[in-house]
Structure formats: structure tokens, C-alpha cells
């Protein structure tokens, strides 16, 4: 991947507040059209990193290039090519969903009609004339994303778009994010939901205490972990001793409701279970980014 074709290039950026190193030497590149996730717990430095890339903050050191240009100091030529959704829902008072979009659109010279069309993309067409403060949390987030996209930017930055949403609203928003990607946009987004990053992102950077701990496609990160797969059965289907004796089983243990078998070779284990007719209530859980995080930091992931 050459840097000319990269949408975002970040080289060793650092930012300290007093003694706190909020961002401590972060480097990565994002290709055009890529869905790039920055994830980590609160206080990991995700938002500061994003703000430096967007040109809202000046890094203490290091360099950022967006589409070959520096975003700092405020680069008016670059601004129309990037779309930013901020963490807070930044709206004008008392305007309807449609009016919010049209007002933000007009800041970029976008016609009122084009702006209103964005409502369709985020599934808010039926809420066009609702005032922003009457929308639900998920609807506000979708409107906020539509406002970031209204001028058809090449790169979209989303800061925790799914934070504080109920599961259904999160899943609705995933569809919106996929639709944006399908339009060929480059997306850089932060989240503290590991499961979500695994589903949506082409690549993820896992951050903690201002540093990137790992950067790869989610599947590669999980595979590289060499973590066992957990197969869970209903309690009483077989004994712990029988389970432990099967080929490929590393460990088996039982609690009040289920029997859990750990294996790094799930194929022979699953076929052995099928032979015994022990598939009732079977669940298979492979390693997730949470396990990756646990492995990298030595502590449980707490969003």
C-alpha cells in the first residue's frame, strides 16, 4: 500500500496533558475505502487521536496527512473532503431533522434537496419534520451521522457512534455504517464495543493508555491469539471425565447448568460429539477481540 493512495497517514503522533500522555506515539495508515476501527476502553486515547487527525487539535509531535494534506492548522481546502461526527450530538436548537441537515449542508454549499435526501440513507425519512430533541437516542445518532455525510466527503470520522444505544438501535446503525462503506467512503471510527468492531471493520487498532497494542484485520488478531474454542453443552449430556477423554479436548469443566469443553482442534471434538448424539443445546464460542485485549493487556476488557 503506497502512501499516495492512503486516505489517512498518521506518523508517531503524541499529545500530553500535563503529565498524562493521552496519545503516546501512534502510527497507522488507512487505505481509501477501508473501514478502520480504533477501539479500546474509555480513556485509552481514541478520541484525542481522532481529534488530532481531524485537525481539531495540534499534536505535540508527529505528523498527520489526510488525502496528502495536513489538517493542522485549520485547512479550509481539506474540510469539504472530510465528514466528522462528534461525540456529543451537535445540533442547532429547535430545528427538525430535515432542517438540521439542510443547515449543515449549506455550510458546504449543498442544496437543500440533496441534504434532505440523506434522511433516506439513515432511515429517518419519516422523521424529517420531527424536532431533533424529540428523536430517540438511536435516531439522533443516525441524524448526526447523516449531518457528517451531507456534503459527500471522502473520509468519514465517527466518534463512538454506537455508544449508549440499546442493542436494536446498535444493529440498525450497523446497517447504516455498512451502507456508507458500500458508497466507497473511507471510514475511521472509534468504539469500545469489541464485538461490533469485529463485525464491521476491515482492520482494527487496539488502543490502551495512549498506544496502539495491535493493528490487523479482526480475524487475523483472533487467529493469532491461538486461544482455545469453547464448546458448551447442556449439563448431564455427558460426564466431565468422558468429555476430558475425547480426542483434542484440553480441558472440561462443569457448572450448575452447562458443561464447557476447551479445544484448539474443534473439528474432531464436534464430530465425536455428533457420534454420541450429544449435540443438544450445543454452543461454540471462538476467541473474540475481547480475548485479544485480555491477552495484550493482561486484564479483562471493561468498556
Amino acid at each position, binding site marked *: 500500500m503506497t502512501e499516495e493512495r492512503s486516505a489517512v497517514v498518521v506518523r508517531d503522533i503524541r499529545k500530553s496533558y500535563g503529565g498524562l500522555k493521552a496519545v503516546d506515539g501512534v502510527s497507522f495508515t488507512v487505505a481509501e475505502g477501508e473501514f478502520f476501527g480504533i477501539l479500546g476502553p474509555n480513556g485509552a486515547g481514541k478520541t484525542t487521536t481522532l481529534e488530532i487527525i*481531524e*485537525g*481539531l487539535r495540534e499534536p505535540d509531535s508527529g505528523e498527520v496527512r489526510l488525502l496528502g494534506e495536513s489538517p493542522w492548522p*485549520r485547512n*479550509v481546502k481539506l*474540510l*469539504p473532503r*472530510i465528514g*466528522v461526527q*462528534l*461525540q*456529543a*450530538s*451537535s*445540533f*442547532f*436548537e*429547535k*430545528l427538525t431533522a430535515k*432542517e438540521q441537515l*439542510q*443547515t*449543515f449542508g*449549506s*455550510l*458546504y*454549499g449543498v442544496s*437543500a434537496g440533496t441534504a434532505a435526501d440523506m434522511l433516506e440513507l439513515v432511515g429517518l425519512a419519516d422523521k424529517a419534520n420531527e*424536532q431533533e430533541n424529540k428523536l430517540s437516542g438511536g435516531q439522533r445518532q443516525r441524524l448526526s451521522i447523516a*449531518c457528517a455525510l451531507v456534503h459527500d466527503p471522502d473520509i468519514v470520522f465517527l466518534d463512538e457512534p454506537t455508544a449508549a444505544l440499546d442493542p436494536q438501535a446498535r444493529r440498525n446503525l450497523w446497517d447504516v455504517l455498512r451502507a456508507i462503506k458500500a458508497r466507497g467512503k473511507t471510514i475511521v471510527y472509534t468504539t469500545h464495543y469489541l464485538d461490533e468492531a469485529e463485525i464491521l471493520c476491515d482492520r482494527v487498532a487496539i488502543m490502551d493508555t495512549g498506544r496502539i497494542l495491535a493493528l490487523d484485520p479482526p480475524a487475523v488478531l483472533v487467529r493469532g491469539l491461538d486461544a482455545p474454542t469453547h464448546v458448551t453443552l447442556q449439563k448431564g449430556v455427558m460426564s466431565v471425565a468422558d468429555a476430558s477423554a475425547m480426542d483434542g479436548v484440553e480441558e472440561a469443566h462443569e457448572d450448575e447448568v452447562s458443561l464447557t469443553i476447551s479445544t484448539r482442534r474443534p473439528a474432531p471434538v464436534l464430530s465425536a460429539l455428533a457420534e454420541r448424539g450429544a449435540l443438544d443445546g450445543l454452543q461454540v464460542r471462538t476467541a473474540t477481540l475481547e480475548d485479544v485485549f485480555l491477552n495484550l493487556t493482561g486484564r479483562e476488557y471493561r468498556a
Partner: protein
Amino acid sequence: MTAFKSLSVAMLKGFIRDKVTLFFTFLFPLMFLVIFGLILRDVGTDKTRIAVVGDGQIVSALRDSGVLELEPYNDENAAVQKVKDGDLPAALIVRGQQLDLRFAQSDQVGSATVVGIVNGFVDKANLAATGQPPRFTFAAEKVEDASLKPIQYLTPGILSWGVAVSAVFGSALTLVSWRRKQVLRRIRLAPVSATAVLSSRVLVSTGVALVQGAIFVGIAMLPVFGLQLSGSWWLAIPLLLLGTIAFFALGMLVGAFAKTEEAASAAANIVVLPMAFLSGTFFPVEQAPGWLQAVSKIFPLRHMNDGMLNVLVRGKGIEALLLPGAVLIGFTLVIAFIASRVFKWEE
């Protein structure tokens, strides 16, 4: 649509749809105008009413003169009871050539007036009855004095105050809420100049001020309040605009320091309320003690008030705008400069 135009429209819609803001912009100052206007309407203009029992030459002369208001009674006791109850200062009882005046001892000013007036009419009738030509002649004529009826100073004062309040609150609250909700940041991420944002907000504020002016003056001119505009009233328009911009700048300064809308509201009140009381919003500042008048000269609202009073009702010409205009422009420049130094895009 240009960014300037659409931002202006957005802010105007936000303003019109906010009932609380509308109330404090239009109805709240208007309430003061109506209440003070009605309370003070008849000050100094009331005619004294007396009870009258019987009729005759003197009573007709009194009635024709219109100096006193006469309340006829058939029964002497009822008329005297009115005086005893303190409802009327005096009762005039006519029995042919004999006139008895019964007056209340407590209301000395009122009764002395009545005694003097009735005495005058009786003397005049007596003189006429003698057929002698009067040796001394006496004529009284009305003079329009410089002291104003209450509505004449209330309207310019409350108008200036209402405009100042909504300009200060409008700019301070917009700034704080936009900063807190990160709308400012969001705007900074768009290719739009700070000038376009600021000037669209100023445009909305000045537009609101003009509407306030039209409504307040319009209502004060209703017959029930009776405001009389001078011929040079239109000079109030430039003054209104300068005042709005000055107080808008003050709101930007308040908004630069305040972190929350509540803090901005409180700070704006602390700035505006004392200034309103000391600048002659609710009473003519000429009635205040000398030192207070001197203190009030440091407030831009005092100068705006003076200017409004001079052009709206005193009929002074464009020269009356010089001092208030200069003070307001100077105030705007100084405050806007400080506000721009302490301005913050984000928390």
C-alpha cells in the same frame, strides 16, 4: 443558500420556536410597560371629586368650569357620610343662598383645594351680584411643561432595557449552548468563516430588536396608554441597532466565561439588572440623587435610554444621537475586543 443566510434562518427558527425566549423577549418587558403604564397613568391628572347636595348658580358655574368633579347626592347625610368614610375630600351642601362645605380634616391638601376653589366661585358670584367692575383682573393659561407623563419616559426606558436583555441573553446563551453541544466545533470543521457565523447571529438579534421596538411603541401608543411620539422618532432606529450590537458584544463576553447555560443566565442577570435600575428604565433618572446619576453615566444603557428619550418623545434632532452613539460604539469596540481575546471554541 449561502452559509450566512441559512445560519440566519436556522437561528431565527430556533428563536421563534423557543417559547421561553419569546416570553422574555416580548411579553416580559411588555408586562412592565403595561403594569407601570396603567399604575402611573393618572398620576397628577386626577380631578378632585366632591359630593354635592342641591343645585344653584354656584353649582352650575362649578360644573361648567370643570375644575372639580361633582358627585350629586339627594341626601345630606349620605354625602357627609362619604366624607366621613374618607371616600371624598368634601361635601358641598346648597340651601338656596346658603352654601355649607363639610370637609375631611385628614385630607388637608384635598380639602384645602376644594375650599379654595369653592370660595373663589362664591366670591366671584358675590362680586357679580354687586354689579361693580373688578379692580384686579386675573387670567390663567395652561403651559406644556418639560416634565413627562409616565408613559413618555417608560416606553423608551423599557424598550432600551428589553432590547438590552434579549441581546445579552441571546448571544450569551447561544455561545454557551453551541460550545457545550460542540456545535461550534462542528461549524469550525466546515469551510465557513467565523465572520459569517457571527454576523448571522447579529442579524437575528438586530431583527428581533426592531420587532421589539415596533411592538412596544405600538402598544404604548394605544389610547389607554397614550404615548405621543415626537417627529424625530425614526432616529431611534439607528440607536436601537447600535444598542443591540453593544449588548450583543456584552453577551459574547459573558458567554466566553460561563461554562453552562445556567451560569450564563445568572451572569447576564447580574450584569443587566443593576444596570437597568440605575439607568432609568423604570423611573426618570433625573429623580435620583446626584451621585447615583453620576454612577449611572458609566452604563451604556443609561446613554441608550437618554438617547431614546430624546428622540422618541422629546423631539430632539440628530445631535441627540452623538453622545449615546459614541458611547455605544466605544463600548462595543472595547467589549468585543476583550470578548475575542477570551473566546474559546471548546470547553
